[in-house]
């Protein structure tokens, strides 16, 4: 967007500009990392964090110091793994052992990797991976064990998918496979993070018992990304939408993008949205278990962005034509609202659930199910923050006075009207009694109305007379 266009946009959307300014000027991080006390390798880690992540870099840097380095390194390790997996120039024979053994490689002092393809945007990270390994050695034992465990699971998962010809050629089949894929790419990261939060005592240990809540957090984010990026992935010949869903609407995957099938494609996308939306309540439940403000911000920001993105993609034909994103202003507004407390985040979820429900179309086969799911989200929020208190409702009932029914109200209005008429008649009567000349008034009106007629008739006759 050019500068002029941007100015025009903000003139039309002043609220968005306000949110951006508000976030940039007034946002006060809970913790701020102190670069002056950092070692060169620590600085190097944050350098690569900023280089490799657009969205997570800021929130990670504002984390509680206890978890700042562990989570930054956890992110970089997974990013390194991801760079190897993504690299199509690497032969599978070389790739597979790297992926499966990465949890051991990350223990070898001075290990670096410079065989990534020239187009890999994060190749620099692997070239200087020795800095990350150096810092990893300093991480507290329990945190390190968690990072290593997840790296191992993730690396093996990635290797399995890299070898899975069916997945790479035809894409995801059933909804179950779809959710398993989301588990490997997002659920596992969530598992690692929850364990880190609980280990550092910044979250309720109960979250470890209810791992399904963590899973929902990851599924929700990943599914939203998969729905939003459908066009981009289609261009890259990748397909993550499960056949089980899209085959109900079109026969071939490519048909989904044909303009002639837009309505079918929209119905398909709304089933995908419905499938994603089912995790929303559990995400809110998870966030209720976070005890530290910086961790809360860290988990809440992506979740709010995700529900806003779901609203953006819902029944939006643009997702089949180009890549769409929430605007910067909306993103800032969401960040402001996600860095406060659970109640505000619940309000965000309710607001977007209602926006989704407003766009819902009765002709869509998923219409009532989507309405019910939005209702479920609202109902869940109601169980956390009830608006009604049964005791107050009980008290309110007792005080209530008997109300009038329709007929009574009608008589009341009628009698009021009759009173006005009566007063009017009396006033006129009294005025007449005291000598008001109403005959003159009526005569006046008469001449004003009828007089015009008589005078014009008179004028005509006078003309006629003159001619004679």
């Amino acid at each position, binding site marked *: 967007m050019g500068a002029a266009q941007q100015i025009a946009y903000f003139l039309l959307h002043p609220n968005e500009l306000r949110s951006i300014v508000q976030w940039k000027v007034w946002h006060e991080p809970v913790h701020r990392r102190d670069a002056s006390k950092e070692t060169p390798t620590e600085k190097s880690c944050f350098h690569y964090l900023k280089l490799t992540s657009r969205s997570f870099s800021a929130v990670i840097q504002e984390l509680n110091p206890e978890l700042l380095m562990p989570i930054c390194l956890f992110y970089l390790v997974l990013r390194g793994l991801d760079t190897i997996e993504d690299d199509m120039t690497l032969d599978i024979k070389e790739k597979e052992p790297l992926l499966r053994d990465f949890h051991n490689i990350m223990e070898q002092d001075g290990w670096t990797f410079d065989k990534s393809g020239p187009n890999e945007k994060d190749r620099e990270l692997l070239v200087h991976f020795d800095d990350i390994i150096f810092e990893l050695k300093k991480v507290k034992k329990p945190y390190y064990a968690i990072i290593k465990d997840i790296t191992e699971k993730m690396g093996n998962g990635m290797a399995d998918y890299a070898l899975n010809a069916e997945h790479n050629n035809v894409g995801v089949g059933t909804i179950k496979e779809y959710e398993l894929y989301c588990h490997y790419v997002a659920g596992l990261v969530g598992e690692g993070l929850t364990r880190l939060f609980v280990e550092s005592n910044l979250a309720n240990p109960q979250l470890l018992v209810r791992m399904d809540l963590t899973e929902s957090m990851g599924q929700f984010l990943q599914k939203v990304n998969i729905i939003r990026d459908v066009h981009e992935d289609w261009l890259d010949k990748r397909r993550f939408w499960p056949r089980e869903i899209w085959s109900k609407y079109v026969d071939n995957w490519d048909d989904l993008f044909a303009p002639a099938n837009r309505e079918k494609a929209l119905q398909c996308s709304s089933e995908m949205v419905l499938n994603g939306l089912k995790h929303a309540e559990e995400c809110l439940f998870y966030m209720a278990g976070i005890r530290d403000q910086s961790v809360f911000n860290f988990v809440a920001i992506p979740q709010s962005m995700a529900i806003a993105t779901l609203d953006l993609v819902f029944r939006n034909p643009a997702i089949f034509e180009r890549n769409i994103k929430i605007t910067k202003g909306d993103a800032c507004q969401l960040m402001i609202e996600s860095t406060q407390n659970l109640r505000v985040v619940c309000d965000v979820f309710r607001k977007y659930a209602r926006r989704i*429900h407003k766009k819902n179309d*009765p*002709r869509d086969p998923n219409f009532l199910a989507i*309405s*019910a799911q939005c*209702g479920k989200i609202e109902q869940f929020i109601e*169980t956390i923050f009830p608006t009604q208190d*049964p005791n107050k409702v009980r008290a309110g*009932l007792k005080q209530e006075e008997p109300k009038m029914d*329709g007929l009574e109200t009608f008589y009341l209005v009628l009698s009021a009207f009759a009173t006005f008429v009566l007063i009017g008649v009396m006033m006129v009567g009294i005025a007449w009694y005291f000598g008001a000349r109403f005959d003159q008034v009526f005569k006046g009106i008469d001449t004003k109305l009828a007089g015009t007629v008589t005078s014009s008739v008179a004028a005509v006759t006078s003309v006629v007379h003159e001619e004679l």
Partner: protein
Amino acid sequence: MPRYIEPQEAISTPPVQLVRTTTHRQLPILNASHHPQTSPITPTKPTTFTMASEKKPSLGSAMVIGGCGFLGHHVVRLLLRDYTTTSISVIDLRCTRNRRPESDGVKYYEADITDADKLISVFSEARPDVVNVDGTAAVIKACQTTGVKALVYTSSASVMSDNKSDLINADERWPTVRGENQTEYYSETKVCDTMVLYHMINIYRQGRTGVQVGNNNNLFDFTYVENVAHGHLLAARALLLTSQSSTIPLDHERVDGEAFLVTNDSPVYFWDFCRAIWAAAGSPLGTDHVRVLPRGVGMVLGFLSECFFAAIGKPPTFNRQRIVYSCMTRYYDISKAKKRLGYKPLISLDEGVRRSVKWTLEQEKVNAEKK
């Protein structure tokens, strides 16, 4: 957050185990053939088991009072389908409608449930273990004198609603509305439920789907009748287990003397529900043609309509109550029934709407042919 649910109005009258289920807005349907996959059942620990034909839970000798009525005949149908019984008997004022075929072996007795002596004689003959009822003190007395083990009493969720105040995620702790605060009691619970659908379909036929009163953010609970019947039988089963058990159940597990709310567990936005019905009835329209009428404006129009009809001395076809109703929030939290009875709706709301609309349209056709 899970909330502790206090037992509300313990009305247990030993030796009869009594449970009150409170239902909400039932949708009519006939001849459904649905096979539940799983149905959790024991009241103490909700474990899941499959209702395969060889492992149907037993309810002993069961009696359904009002078993020829709308809800009652669904209870009878589910009894035959999902449970094993030694006998099924039905008491109703008239037993001509909604009868099961002779081959099902259901015994029908015509009796007035306010007539205690008659009831006792029927009870002594039918010897029920479980009674499903829609009735009065005479029934309780008859149960006590003839040694009935379990009694499930049906109420309506309207006992909690005054038809104008919102009920937001209400559960069994909410107060019941009695006497003057309660309006339209009978019409609301018995007649309207089956008529609502007919009226809604008519609104579509008359092309009046283009107006929405209020902002449509108000959630409403609707319940499909088969789910209500299912809730009743789960309660009956839980009561029987309680009476057979030698230990007294813990407070948070008990079923006897407790009230339970039963809905479809799926509140939806009021106008969305209407639109789903219109769509099921064949409406090809989306929401582009819909105009939103603010609630205040609707109230003024409703009032004017009432004045007009009062002046010409006829009951108004359009009034403020309808505006209030379409803008009201009314949905329930049924965690208690889910936890203690293992209740889960058998038929989804979506499916319920489809079946109900189909049934209503078929009924219409049948009635038209009669004429």
